[in-house]
């Protein structure tokens, strides 16, 4: 269920997600939060089992904070994505998988990045990524609309449009869109 979208632009990164939590054929919640900030620089959009995803996000937050304190500087977006995928991978290998598909997006010294990690722990990075049951529909909108020279505002608009399109045709997605934008200027700052 769920539709999440992540887009990178030259000015920063955008995450968008719907607000529906499904319990089988029942709408369990209409106001669920699926985008979580790990800190001011990096955020995660979650699809799959809410409990698994939230636990994973909390664990990633703690591990990131610890590593940053120990070594004296924060993690890059790639390191954050890899940290999460390592946890997911080891769980899968011990027959106790996290039922999640995550979009990890953020800004660091190298600019804006978007990664996805599935429940096997495989990570990939592209200019835009989507996950959840509505992602085939969202990808259609993204493939048509994405431009490399997007501003952050244009990326926000496309991300929202992609999730809205998925909400129209995917019964697992609906009830509104949350959007989070992180500008490049947040890199290595602890803003918000």
């Amino acid at each position: 269920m769920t539709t999440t979208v992540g887009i990178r632009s030259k000015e920063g990164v955008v995450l968008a997600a719907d607000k529906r939590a499904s319990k089988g054929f029942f709408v369990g919640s209409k106001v669920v939060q699926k985008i979580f900030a790990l800190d001011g620089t990096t955020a995660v959009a979650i699809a799959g089992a809410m409990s698994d995803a939230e636990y994973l996000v909390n664990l990633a937050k703690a591990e990131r904070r610890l590593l940053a304190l120990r070594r004296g500087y924060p993690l890059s977006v790639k390191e954050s994505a890899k940290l999460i995928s390592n946890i997911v991978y080891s769980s899968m290998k011990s027959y106790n998988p996290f039922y999640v598909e995550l979009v990890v997006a953020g800004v660091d010294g190298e600019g804006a990045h978007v990664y996805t990690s599935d429940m096997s722990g495989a990570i990939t990075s592209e200019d835009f990524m989507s996950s959840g049951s509505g992602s085939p529909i969202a990808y259609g909108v993204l493939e048509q609309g994405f431009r490399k020279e997007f501003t952050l505002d244009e990326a926000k608009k496309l991300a929202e449009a992609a999730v809205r399109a998925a909400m129209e045709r995917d019964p697992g997605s609906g009830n509104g869109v949350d959007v989070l934008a992180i500008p490049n200027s947040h890199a290595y700052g602890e803003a918000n």
Partner: protein
Amino acid sequence: MAAEMNRMPFFYNQEGRLVQVDYALQAVSRGSTTIGIKTNDFALLSSQVKPTRPLMEPAEKVFVVDDHIGATGSGYIGDVTTLLDQLRVAAQRHRVVYDEPIDIGTLSRNLSEYLHEFTMYAVRPFGASVILAGIDHLGVQLVQVDPSGTTFKGSAFAIGQASDDALETIVKGYRPDLSVEEALALATQAVEGVNGGKSVIEHGVVTSTSKKFEHQNLAHAVA
């Protein structure tokens, strides 16, 4: 009997003392002079950095444990850093479990229980005392934890070399309405007073308004 006691120094001796723990405290008193000062509005940690040699970067002595808590220590620096990591892991574990920042009481108890384990068995107790400064729902807090696991709460602590003399300076200059700048000056005076003048000192402060523990640079404090 006496020979037997010597073979098992981790047991009580005939005076009822744990000599290993006493020795650990002695190791702390050989460490660099380290100070904690607290008022209702802030808590300050200050530690003398040594040795300072040309072409060498001074070692870090005041550490961030989590956003709202800082720590410093005196004694074997390797032991201090190990205890520091114990504190950081406990703080983050608390966030994972409760989704809330850890309170100072829970954190110091965690450290105290960890240290206490090492007084029970045939192992070397940590040769380090730690001072924690932080803020939680109960306000600004200052805590000292010793190698035995003993915990003290209070408004001012001094550990390490000549800590008794340093504490005397602080007791003389302490007021509950000290400003951060005045406390910095007092801590500096206390450390330098027992170490023969100008010293490299690292400071860290948490205030009730910022609720963040941050390194303090002395130039800013003097201005």
